[in-house]
């Protein structure tokens, strides 16, 4: 039979210690698969292995046992009958006595004990046998690390599945485990050891049971490891962290209250150690164990815990923070370490448990009463010495945290401390009838001792937090009869009055910022007590609000106070908005919201306008109901100001209107966008603006600057952009009706597009016939609506509107061009028949724009011949761009218009954009030669004309920038443009080859210069990846572009962008290859830019590029060393510090070459 002989071989090769591990593993796999596939039974295998399992050769016996064990491990899911399992487990548990073959025995026991019920498990009595054998035979601590780990695993496994059998072992088990874990040092094993103790303790819950006598031993064992001190260096033992160990130890400690007499003194002792981690651990363990050990056991430690807690907190304070402005500030602004935080957690924990005990401890504490005595001697925060401040902070924090725990402690503390504090502050108590014992009008700030105010505020805020916290659970059934409640009611009036009167205008000259901070905080807390708990009267609440409002309107010079007051108002606003308390809400609206709105209206208030807007927006943001009112108010004010400008010619209002509109665009609309669901506000805004513009009669007021119109346009765009389609349709209908009924725009244009051209003819037109002010507004606002519309927005009478926009952009209205671009971008590809016949498809629109004759007197044939002298000839847009009418200004407008249309096409991925590019290039080239020749004769020419010529070419070159860059004004995602992915790459790959070939062909230096300019735009706006893929070809062009752009100071921004592309190439692995090829030119270009006078960033970046170049292969760059060093030595003397610093780096890099 082949099987046995093969089997023998396999066994032999596993048992043979000289074989390689892979061979051994392979033979193990082979044997396993034999058994798995039922080619071999376990009995046969054991029989076959008899010799290996019983031999006196220890090495072979150990290997043999291990082989059997490993096979069993691999067969975990194969069903085995009970008899087999029984005999196997008997065998392995006997083998536990054989220390030489122990590994195999352990693995075998584990494999069998871990079996799932479905595959047959070890019966209970056998498991007990294993445990007995384990306890009898194993000396765990004398074994190696891996074996120890297996031993512990075996124990854990037994605890998990056979706990009853283990429990019956009693004392023997506990003793055995104590012995096994004692002295363990390996982190992995320790984790298991801690866990074993935890489950062991759980097994014997009886306090008088067998465990009792071993408690001291076990807690001694555990105590040896506390606090966990981890000396393993990082990187080793990564899978066990200090925190894991610490947590396991904590669970072990807390497993039984029986440990309490041993552990709590240990923790307290370690708490006084100097090691921070020991302190943190002690506090954590104490908090955790407190719950587990129970109130009775912990009670006897209360005194000790309290005194060490007090010490710990006071000793753990760090430096006081400088600023009181941060939101999350506790107490007096001393930074608290982790220790203090843990200590406060413990404080709350013990308070929860033994309330009365700790209450009396704190109330009778001497340190605290000393503090109460000391604070009377200091009036202001600044008078208090640091040490006292620290102690005050500690007391404040302790009181806050203790008070917060439950109502009982809250009552007790308020009762014992509040009257005392009030006495220090000399505040009168309200007697039962509601009147004051002493009626006092004015409270002098001289009496507001800071310490008392501080502690008072801490108590108040703790009380409030407690109520707010419990409010969720108990609804509004917070017991109003609680003693603390009555206590607060007795003093709330006088306290509020005291704070208010000291904060009121003029009363602050002596006070420090911190004093003010706590007074404001106190008022804020008083105002935000839930009504059901502390019914502070309406007048009181209004009083608080009035105080803050007067600070807002008068005390803006005291920035910090102003900010604090605003913050407090916002806080109160949020509170009022959050809980539905109608009376307070009304007062808030009346006093805060209304009056702050009236602040904006009124001129007589000295508060700067920017601050007004800040305050109003912050307050609005505290709740949506406030915001709605505020938006409405602001809108009215803005529109009233607008009308004021345009009807009454009041230029002073212009500034205000602009600021208000900017506030809308920058703050209000984004807020609406975030909040969501407030679209009707946007709709109302847009419609109201239109109504207002409509209502202007003839306005001939000339307003300086376009600021106000621009601001309105931006606001309109944003408002329309965030609306849904439906609302957009409403707006556009409104806008269209105003456009068609109120202006002559549509009527005039619809007959012929050519109005401007007709009029001009050959006469040069500086003064385009301008629209009236109102017409201009309507036109531009209409354009804004179109720009921001969604693709599905239904635009009425598209044809006329297209014509209108064509006509107006030729007059130089860029927004018209942008609107046209947006329309082109968003029009549907083809109108289906089902749709409204007035819907215009993209193709038709394109035809309309590109093919419509702009005049109608000539026929097509003449066009090609047509040059600057023809007048009134029929021309399409392209011809205008190419300058067939001798009017350069018109040509510039045409090019700009064409560019925006092209951008619309480009974004949607329309192929017609190629034609646009070609036209633009033609503009560049055809005029280039002319421009150059004209340049030569420039002395004779009218300079004005020549400037215009240049500007035509420049605008053609800059058109590439418009095409490639992202615009904020239109055609972006915010305004719902259709943007195909990777459109920049596509444009880059279309335009670059054309530009490259043109550059090669071009012979005039002027037009080449212009081509470089256009190329520079394309390169600098293209994604770096696209540029990098063609770095070799592009680098020379890029360098030329750099030198062209460096000629003119106006191009400094573009130059910088382009230089960044170069540095991007330099940083890339492939790009460096291209740079190396052109190293000579790159160095030359960079050394020139090092001295670029117009922009510091250019110089800095150029030097950084040079530093990067010094990393390139030595042989290539060494020749330039002197050249670079020469250029850099000048940069060392640069007027800007940053440049000098870069130059030093660069010089060092190059001089060590």
């Amino acid at each position, binding site marked *: 039979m082949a099987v046995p002989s093969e089997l023998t071989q396999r066994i032999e090769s596993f048992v043979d210690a000289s074989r390689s591990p892979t061979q051994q593993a392979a033979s193990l796999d082979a044997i396993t698969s034999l058994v798995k596939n039922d080619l071999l039974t376990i009995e046969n295998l054991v029989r076959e292995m008899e010799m290996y399992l019983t031999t006196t050769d220890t090495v072979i016996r150990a290997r043999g046992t291990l082989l059997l064990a490993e096979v069993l491990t691999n067969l975990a899911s194969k069903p085995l009958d009970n008899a087999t399992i029984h005999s196997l487990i008997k065998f392995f548990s006997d083998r536990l006595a054989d220390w030489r073959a122990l590994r195999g025995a352990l693995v075998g026991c584990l494999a069998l004990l871990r079996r799932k019920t479905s595959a047959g498990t070890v019966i209970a009595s056998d498991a007990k046998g294993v445990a007995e054998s384990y306890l009898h035979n194993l000396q765990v601590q004398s074994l190696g690390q891996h074996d120890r780990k297996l031993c512990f695993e075996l124990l854990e496994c037994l605890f998990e599945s056979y706990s009853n059998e283990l429990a019956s072992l009693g004392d023997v088990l506990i003793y055995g485990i104590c012995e096994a874990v004692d002295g363990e040092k390996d982190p992995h094993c320790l984790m298991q050891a801690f866990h074993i103790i935890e489950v062991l303790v759980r097994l014997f819950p009886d306090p008088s049971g067998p465990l009792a006598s071993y408690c001291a031993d076990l807690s001694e064992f555990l105590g040896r490891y506390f606090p966990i001190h981890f000396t393993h260096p990082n990187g080793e033992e990564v899978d066990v962290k200090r925190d894991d160990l610490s947590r396991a130890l904590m669970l072990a400690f807390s497993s039984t209250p029986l440990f309490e007499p041993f552990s709590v003194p240990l923790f307290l002792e370690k708490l006084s150690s100097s090691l921070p981690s020991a302190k943190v651990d002690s506090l954590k363990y104490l908090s955790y164990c407190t719950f587990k050990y129970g109130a009775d056991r912990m009670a006897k430690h209360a005194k000790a815990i309290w005194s060490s807690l007090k010490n710990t907190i006071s000793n753990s304070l760090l430096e006081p923070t400088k600023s009181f402005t941060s939101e999350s500030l506790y107490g007096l602004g001393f930074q608290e370490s982790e220790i203090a935080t843990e200590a406060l957690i413990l404080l709350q924990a013990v308070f929860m448990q033994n309330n009365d005990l700790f209450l009396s401890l704190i109330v009778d504490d001497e340190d605290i009463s000393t503090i109460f005595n000391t604070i009377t001697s200091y009036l202001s925060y600044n008078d208090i010495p640091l040490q006292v401040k620290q102690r005050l902070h500690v007391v404040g924090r302790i009181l806050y945290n203790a008070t917060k725990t439950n109502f009982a402690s809250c009552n007790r503390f308020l009762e014992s401390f509040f009257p005392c504090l009030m006495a220090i502050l000399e505040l009168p108590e309200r007697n039962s009838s509601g009147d004051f014992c002493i009626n006092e009008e004015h409270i002098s700030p001289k009496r507001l001792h800071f310490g008392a105010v501080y502690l008072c505020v801490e108590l108040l805020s703790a009380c409030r937090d407690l109520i707010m916290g419990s409010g969720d659970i108990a609804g509004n059934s917070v017991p109003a009869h609680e003693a603390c409640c009555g206590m607060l009611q007795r003093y709330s009036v006088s306290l509020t009055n005291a704070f208010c009167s000291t904060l009121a205008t003029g009363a602050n000259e002596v006070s420090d910022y911190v004093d003010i901070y706590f007074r404001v905080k106190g008022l804020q807390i008083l105002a935000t007590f839930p009504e059901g708990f502390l019914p502070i009267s309406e007048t009181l609440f209004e009083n608080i609000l009035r105080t803050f409002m007067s600070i807002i309107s008068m005390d803006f010079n005291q920035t910090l106070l102003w900010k604090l007051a605003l913050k407090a108002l916002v806080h109160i606003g949020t509170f009022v908005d959050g809980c539905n308390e109608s009376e307070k809400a009304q007062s808030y609206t009346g006093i805060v919201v209304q009056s702050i709105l009236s602040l904006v209206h009124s001129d007589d208030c000295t508060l700067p306008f920017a601050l007004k807007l800040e305050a109003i927006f912050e307050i609005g943001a505290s709740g949506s109901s406030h915001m709605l009112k505020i938006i409405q108010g602001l809108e009215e004010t803005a529109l009233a100001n607008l009308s004021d400008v345009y009807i009454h010619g009041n230029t002073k209002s212009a500034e205000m209107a602009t600021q208000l509109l900017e506030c809308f665009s920058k703050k209000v609309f984004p807020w609406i966008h975030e909040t969501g669901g407030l679209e009707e506000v946007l709709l109302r805004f847009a419609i109201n603006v239109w109504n207002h513009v409509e209502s202007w009669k003839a306005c001939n007021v000339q307003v300086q600057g376009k600021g106000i119109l621009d601001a309105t346009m931006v606001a309109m765009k944003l408002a329309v952009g965030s609306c849904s389609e439906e609302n957009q349709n409403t707006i556009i209908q409104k806008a269209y009706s105003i456009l068609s009924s109120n202006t002559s725009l549509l009527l005039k244009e619809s007959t012929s597009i050519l109005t401007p051209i007709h009029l001009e003819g050959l006469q040069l037109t500086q003064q385009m016939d301008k629209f009236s002010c109102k017409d201009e507004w309507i036109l531009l606002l209409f354009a804004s609506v179109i720009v921001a519309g969604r693709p599905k927005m239904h635009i009425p009478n598209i044809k006329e509107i297209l014509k209108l926009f064509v006509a107006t952009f030729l007059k130089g209205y860029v927004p018209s061009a942008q609107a046209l671009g947006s329309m082109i971008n968003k029009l549907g590809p083809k109108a289906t028949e089902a749709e409204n016949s007035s819907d215009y498809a993209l193709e038709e629109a394109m035809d309309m724009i590109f093919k419509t004759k702009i005049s109608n007197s000539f026929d097509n044939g003449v066009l090609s011949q047509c040059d600057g002298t023809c007048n009134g000839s029929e021309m399409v847009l392209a011809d205008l761009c190419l300058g067939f009418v001798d009017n350069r200004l018109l040509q510039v407008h045409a090019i700009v218009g064409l560019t925006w249309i092209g951008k619309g096409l480009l974004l949607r991925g329309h192929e017609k954009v190629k034609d646009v590019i070609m036209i633009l290039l033609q503009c560049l080239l055809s005029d280039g030669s002319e421009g150059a020749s004209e340049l030569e004769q420039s002395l004779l020419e009218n300079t004005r004309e020549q400037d215009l010529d240049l500007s035509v070419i420049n605008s053609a070159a800059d058109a590439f920038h418009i095409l490639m860059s992202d615009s904020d004004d239109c055609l972006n995602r915010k305004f719902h443009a259709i943007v195909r992915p990777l459109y920049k790459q596509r444009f880059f790959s279309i335009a670059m080859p054309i530009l490259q070939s043109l550059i090669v062909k071009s012979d005039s230096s002027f037009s080449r210069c212009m081509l470089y300019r256009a190329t520079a735009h394309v390169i600098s706006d293209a994604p770096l990846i696209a540029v990098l893929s063609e770095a070799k070809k592009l680098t020379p062009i890029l360098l030329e572009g750099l030198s062209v752009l460096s000629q003119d100071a106006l191009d400094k921004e573009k130059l910088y962008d382009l230089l960044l592309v170069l540095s991007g190439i330099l940083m890339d692995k492939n790009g460096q290859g291209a740079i190396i090829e052109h190293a000579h030119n790159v160095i030359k270009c960079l050394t020139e830019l090092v001295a670029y006078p117009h922009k510091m960033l250019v110089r800095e970046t150029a030097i950084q590029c040079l530093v990067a170049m010094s990393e390139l292969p030595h042989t290539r760059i060494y020749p330039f060393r002197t050249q670079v060093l020469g250029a850099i030595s000048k940069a*060392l003397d640069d007027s800007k510090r940053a440049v000098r610093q870069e130059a030093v780096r660069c010089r060092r890099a190059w001089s060590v070459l």
Partner: protein
Amino acid sequence: MTLGLINANPVVHAKKERVARTEDLHGDEAVDPLEIYDILLSVDPEHPYSLEQLSVLSEESITVDDKLGRILITFITVQHCSKATVIGLCLIVKLKHYFPPHYKVDIKVSPGSHANEESVNKQLNDKERVAAALENQTFANL
């Protein structure tokens, strides 16, 4: 190599809080003492503290005349500090790296703080001796 630290337990002074420089994008930024101070702070031959913490240098001990290109530095040391010249030399080398050649650097031990004040000053401001010292291999290693 060293025979132990000469000033083994220096008095370490707290670092001063620095006022952040206000960024002025348009004006020229002349060389000022603070800039030189920042440059020199990284020098120290003996201790893991900066010269500021050791109170060898302070911002006030540096004077600059940007127009004439002159820098005068006075540093404080202990009476018999053998490293006074080394510190001075380090400062000179550091500044040479940072400023164009037309700057003239003068370095002095502050009056009264060193036993051989005059000779140290003389050594430090003697161009030839500085050049020679820099060629010395031991110093080059510093």
